[in-house]
């Protein structure tokens, strides 16, 4: 049980990188990006193929991340320069990446059994700390990446990206190239997703063409559950919540499997979790809203009337 628990948390922390990527597009850019399903597998494929070809695991992981960035930029270009709508541009990339991933691997899966991966290196380096060495190493790296995301979103470029997702008209009037902001955001997001895919491939010791299927939903589940459980009043808080959400999601799956859920039903369970999280968070919001609004009703009504009076005058 303890072994399963650390395993779930480890996987959760690695998937958290993917969830952070989904957070960047879904929440920060307000861009529901489906590229993720393709770029996650791209990350795994690139890392696996580079490792089996003798590259160092670190280089392979960085290569995978770069491939994800390219995939995200393509989606961004399709949307901004090709004027294709958000969902469709993501779907197009996702479908194209399926073939590209097969091309990268040359077959449907690439085993990494017995190969040197980042995790075998960590284990041999920190062998005295077993069995928590992998969790510690992964946890520290993910926290560092979280910190880097927080830092980036507070820079001038980061603020412009956030404003692009928040109010496009406004940020354009403040001389930000919204096309570039979207491309940067999508690129970073898919870089994180591919990094996560690369680590998962090394962790489970194989890359598979279908490893990305449904990943976007797992990402959404992590973001929404995390925000609901841990709060999202600031960026720092929200990125922390997303990591927490990814771990909670893994734990739920582990318990579901323990009590006898058929692994074939996992995606259905994930979909149900997302629906519950979405609907309940909306319900909680309206409930909170109502509680806050009630005492203020009168001044609001008065303001509404004022505005209406003005518009009458215009006609």
């Amino acid at each position, binding site marked *: 049980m303890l072994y399963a628990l650390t395993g779930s948390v480890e996987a959760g922390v690695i998937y958290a990188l993917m969830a952070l990527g989904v957070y960047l597009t879904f929440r920060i850019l307000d861009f529901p990006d489906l590229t993720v399903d393709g770029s996650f597998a791209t990350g795994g494929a690139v890392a696996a193929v580079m490792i089996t070809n003798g590259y160092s695991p670190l280089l392979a992981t960085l290569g995978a991340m770069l491939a994800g960035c390219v995939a995200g930029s393509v989606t961004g270009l399709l949307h901004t320069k090709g004027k294709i709508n958000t969902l469709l541009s993501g779907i197009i990339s996702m479908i194209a990446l399926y073939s590209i991933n097969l091309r990268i691997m040359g077959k449907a899966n690439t085993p990494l059994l017995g190969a040197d991966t980042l995790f075998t290196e960590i284990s041999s380096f920190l062998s005295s700390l077993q069995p928590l060495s992998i969790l510690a190493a992964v946890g520290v790296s993910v926290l560092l990446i979280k910190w880097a995301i927080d830092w980036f979103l507070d820079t001038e470029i980061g603020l412009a990206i956030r404003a692009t997702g928040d109010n496009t008209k406004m940020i354009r009037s403040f001389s*930000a190239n919204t096309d570039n902001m979207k491309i940067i955001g999508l690129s970073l997001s898919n870089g994180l997703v591919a990094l996560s895919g690369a680590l998962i491939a090394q962790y489970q010791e194989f890359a598979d063409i279908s490893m990305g299927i449904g990943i976007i939903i797992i990402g959404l589940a992590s973001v929404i559950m995390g925000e609901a459980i841990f709060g999202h009043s600031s960026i720092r808080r929200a990125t922390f919540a997303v990591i927490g959400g990814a771990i909670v999601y893994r734990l739920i799956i582990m318990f579901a499997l323990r009590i006898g859920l058929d692994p074939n039903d996992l995606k259905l369970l994930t979909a149900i979790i997302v629906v519950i999280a979405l609907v309940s968070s909306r319900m909680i919001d309206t409930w909170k809203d109502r509680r806050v609004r009630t005492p203020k009703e009168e001044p609001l009504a008065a303001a509404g009337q004022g505005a209406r009076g*003005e518009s009458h005058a*215009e006609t």
Partner: protein
Amino acid sequence: MRRPAKEQGGRAMLKLNGIRKVFNRRTASEKIALQEINLTLHPGDFVTIIGSNGAGKSTLMNIISGGMAPDCGTIEIDGEMVTGLSEYERARKIGRVFQDPMAGTAPTMTIEENLAVAFSRDRRRTLHRGVDKKRKELFREYLASLHLGLEHRLTAKAGLLSGGERQALSLLMATFTQPKVLLLDEHTAALDPARAQLITALTREVVERSKFTTLMVTHNMQQAIELGNRLIMMDAGQIILDVPEEEKKHLTIEDLLKKFALLKGVADDRLLLG
């Protein structure tokens, strides 16, 4: 931070030359939105534009800001041709406040973050921290000039502000980096009368303090007469009346209506009720 006050002189700060715009060209619903608009604003000019709905005021604003391209004609800002520049490129020189109080600020970002976005308007955005200690002080100082107490709420989300507060913040953000041209597009129309008055007073104060070259569209004739040093009336895509400074000082709403009736041959109650 602040640039020296702009020199006054004969040069043009904003120059529109033969601007023409037709919507739905070659269809049954073809509509000439603007025909041959020529307009020159000198540094420090504050021009108010009135006109009935569909007169072309908003189209004109959109064409100056770059949200829309003219069919023909040129736009110059401070001697530089900007006709071919995109909206975000022109935005370095143009400050804008929109009619909708929601449009001018990013609701999920804090007041200081919004100001930081405005602060980077005329420069290349870098990986420099958007809100650092020095800027925070500057933001606080600027916000204090609004007398709304916003300087104590730097980390409040802009979405929590009232319409009037948001519009005041928008005005401050639009003028933060000393734009060459300030465009105000009915920026008090969506507010209740008391707040509209507050924003009108703030506008006067801000423009007078920094001598911004300003173009303001309004539906409110009283406001159009009170503010600025020149008044323009538009109708059917044309400038039909241009009142210079001296004459504008003695202008009344009745005068405007009479002039409009003379020019159009009929009194238009849409203007009267504005």
